[in-house]
């Protein structure tokens, strides 16, 4: 069990992480997902023991390892965790082999075991042939593998990754994603993985914590997040393409949806209605629930078309079978389904 209880981190007056509580079972793959600057790295560094929490506890397997309330912490090296830094942090004056070997040396592992273990992890990550090169003599993807090899060599039971794929190009990223999942199965280590890329989160995680402004917006399985977003932020952050969020305002006796009167029955006077992209359609003529939008983008996705329209700052995306006749810049009628998928209050909380 990895448990985080009411964890808070302040830098001066600024709260980088606010009152975070999460718990996952052994062997879980927990992804911390959120936009840049939301406190993911700070949370990860507290897990690694590099930062002391300002309040709250971190508990590995029933044993507290950090306690911000008592200013008490277990040394990073004593937590049996390993961290892969975003910059990789390979020691530039040591060869690939040296980088992987040194932590084992520090652990006082006997020489023969060390040699065996180094060979084993280099093979696991498919970089045996690079053993004698220096970090600046290998590519970014290879450096990434070395950083991972170095971290898993001491067999930590908690593995921490800080945006490990963000410096790689798109194709390599997809390959490494598969590779990391294979690695997770092979080591069985509880993994905490930080990313701002929701696709990574959805494909790799057993548990996802979506963060914004230092808070956990929602914690659950990837399917939970898609099927049942708790906040408007989660609803628009998750999914490809993202969900549509349309503001609704009460005006007299009726409701204006995205600027037009429509027959809806929202649970509150001012709120947001969420429509899934695959529930939207295009229509040739104006109808009861259509919104005229300027066509700004079309692109083919898995045999279907993704169509995006824009008007007055409102952006709508629909997934349809066939591209519209209209050209970019023309006006297209986006047809909303009769009932929205979910309702959110003006503060972003789900209300129905």
């Amino acid at each position, binding site marked *: *069990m990895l448990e985080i209880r009411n964890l808070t981190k302040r830098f001066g007056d600024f709260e980088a992480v606010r009152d975070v509580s999460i718990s996952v079972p052994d062997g879980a793959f927990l992804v911390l997902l959120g936009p840049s600057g939301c406190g993911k790295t700070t949370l990860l560094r507290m897990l690694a023991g590099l930062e*002391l929490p300002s309040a709250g506890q971190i508990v590995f397997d029933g044993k507290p390892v950090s306690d911000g309330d008592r200013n008490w912490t*277990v040394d990073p*090296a004593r937590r049996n965790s390993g961290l892969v830094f975003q910059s990789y942090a390979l020691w*530039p004056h040591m060869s690939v082999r040296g980088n992987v070997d*040194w932590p084992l040396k520090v652990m006082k592992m006997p020489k023969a075991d060390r040699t065996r273990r180094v060979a084993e992890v280099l093979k696991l990550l498919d970089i045996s042939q690079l053993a004698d090169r220096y970090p600046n003599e290998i590519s970014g993807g290879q450096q990434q593998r070395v950083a991972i090899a170095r971290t898993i060599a001491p067999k930590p*039971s908690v593995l921490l990754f800080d945006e490990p794929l963000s410096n790689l190009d798109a194709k390599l990223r997809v390959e490494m994603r598969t590779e990391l999942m294979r690695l997770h199965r092979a080591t069985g280590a509880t993994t905490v993985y930080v990313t701002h890329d929701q696709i990574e989160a959805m494909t790799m995680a057993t548990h996802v914590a979506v963060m914004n402004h230092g808070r956990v917006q929602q914690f659950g399985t990837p399917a939970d997040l898609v099927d049942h977003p708790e906040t408007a932020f989660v609803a628009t952050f998750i999914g490809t393409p993202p969900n549509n969020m349309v503001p609704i305002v009460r005006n007299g006796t009726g409701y204006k949806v995205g600027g037009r009167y429509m027959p809806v029955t929202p649970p509150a006077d001012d709120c947001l209605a969420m429509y899934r992209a695959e529930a939207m359609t295009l229509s040739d003529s104006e109808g009861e629930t259509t919104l005229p939008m300027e066509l700004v983008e079309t692109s083919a996705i898995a045999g279907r078309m993704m169509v995006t329209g824009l008007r007055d700052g409102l952006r709508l995306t629909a997934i349809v079978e066939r591209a519209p006749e209209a050209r970019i810049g023309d006006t297209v009628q986006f047809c909303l389904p009769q009932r929205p998928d979910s309702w959110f209050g003006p503060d972003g909380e789900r209300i129905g």
Partner: protein
Amino acid sequence: MAQAAMGGQGRRVLFQQGTVLKAVVLALLVALIVLPLIRTVMFTLHPDTVKAWSDVLTGRLSKNLFYKPLGNTLLIGVVVATACVLLGGFLAWLVVMTNVPFRKTIGVMATLPFMIPSFAAALAWGSLFRNDRVGGQVGWLQGLGLDIPDWLAWGMVPTLIVLTLHYFSLAFTIIAAALATVNSDLVEAAQIAGAKGRRILMGIILPVTTPALVAAGSLCFAGAVSNFATPALLGLPVRMQTLSTRLFGMIEVGQVGRGYVIGILLVLISGAFLWAGNRIVSGRRSYATITGKGGRAKRFDLRGARWPLCAVAAVVLLSSTVIPVIVLTASSLAPSSANLFSNWTLHYWMGQSDPSFAQGIPGIAYNEDIVRALTVTLGLGLAVAFTGMFVGLLASYTTARFREGWASAAITQISFLPLLVPGIAFGAAYIAYLGAPIGPFPALYGTFALLVIAGTAYLLPFSVQTGRAVIQQVGGELEESARITGASFGRRLFAITVPLAIRGLAAGGILIFVKIVRDLSLVVLLFTPTMPVLSVLAYRYASEGFGQFANAITVVILFISIAATLIANRLQTKSQPWLQN
């Protein structure tokens, strides 16, 4: 997971992380930099000495004590700063943006004058241009039969020329760095938009480099107004005073209070200009970072002007580097500077004492004073290099590792404070600070320790800067990833930090060594006959009319500085197996 928290002995974190370290560093910096300055001010406010303020500012003598030197100082500052920006900017433009022949050579040569102490150039000027106005030997040109007018031999004009030829190199470095960030894409975009040479210069290049021009101007101004050696050697014999020579004179004759007041005013003036320059620059947006990296594929084609412009650059560069060195060397060998290139003798270098020659002063190899000064100077350079790098590393580690909080901001600000204080004023402050006993501590005047402490404090801006570069190389995640493995502090230090940092540290230490070895303005007031240093001896010999000895000593200083600089450059660029690309 079962063993996750095994051996999980935690520890209590008693203080906020870094509190102790910050407190120690802050106390050290306050003791080294803030207290001397405060003590100087306090001294002038003491009831016995407070009259010095009115003497200097409003008294009967104030015109001679302060206002005339002030006028000279400001004139020097404005003219030298303007000339340096023009000259340095011109050379930077040639090197970075045009296809002038020998671009690389010009680029390297233009950084050299700043490596040569300014008193070397002033001495060389004397050996060439002295006339018989103040007696003593005449210079080479007068010896050739030319009649050198007074204005060219002494006073303001030669001071301006020598200082410009010294400080333009600083302006060059700053402006060239800024020009190098003007991406060729930027210029090409303007060309595509239809702009021609002049428009591109005025519309694109100049606005983008304005912050650098202002920075270069204010740094050259601050350097020129606080320079001591050049006005002292070329101006004092004809009673031209600047604030720094006045300060020196006041303290020499024992009018310490007035000296300190002048020193404080000098600090305010040079500080005000640096501050103003900084304000102008930081008020603007910095453009330099907006552009990505881009090779400069195309250079501005000078066509027919290539060789003439190259010749102009050559004249400037030769007269600021090669000619002074040749003149100094020749004059240390020639019995008469009127005949620089004949009757050469090694007497001034290794002659025994001979009553018929130079009043019996032996050559510098047998001159006990000079040999002692050499030992003291080298020892001082080494000691300051060590202490400076130590304090610099400590301060920059503290601010890099614990960024937040007012204490870190204070450490950064204080460590750069000496940049605002001219060397001679800093020296004066240290006399006020440690010249008399403080509590149980004895007075340090005349001791090696005083020189080391003052030198360390004075050069702290450079050592902190070097320390920062080193910390950036090794600090942060590289060190943390070693910490996570459980390696102890000592082990991390020797396996990770030192191997990565050693070259940077050595190079930084050598640069500090060079700065202190060739410094005159800081040590000229701290000098005592029991603790002589080379640069002050050279200055004394020169002002007593023994130009050859002064020049020989200066050649030694030059040799040490150049050798050390070359070693430092090599260390910085020398290939490391893990840096090869």
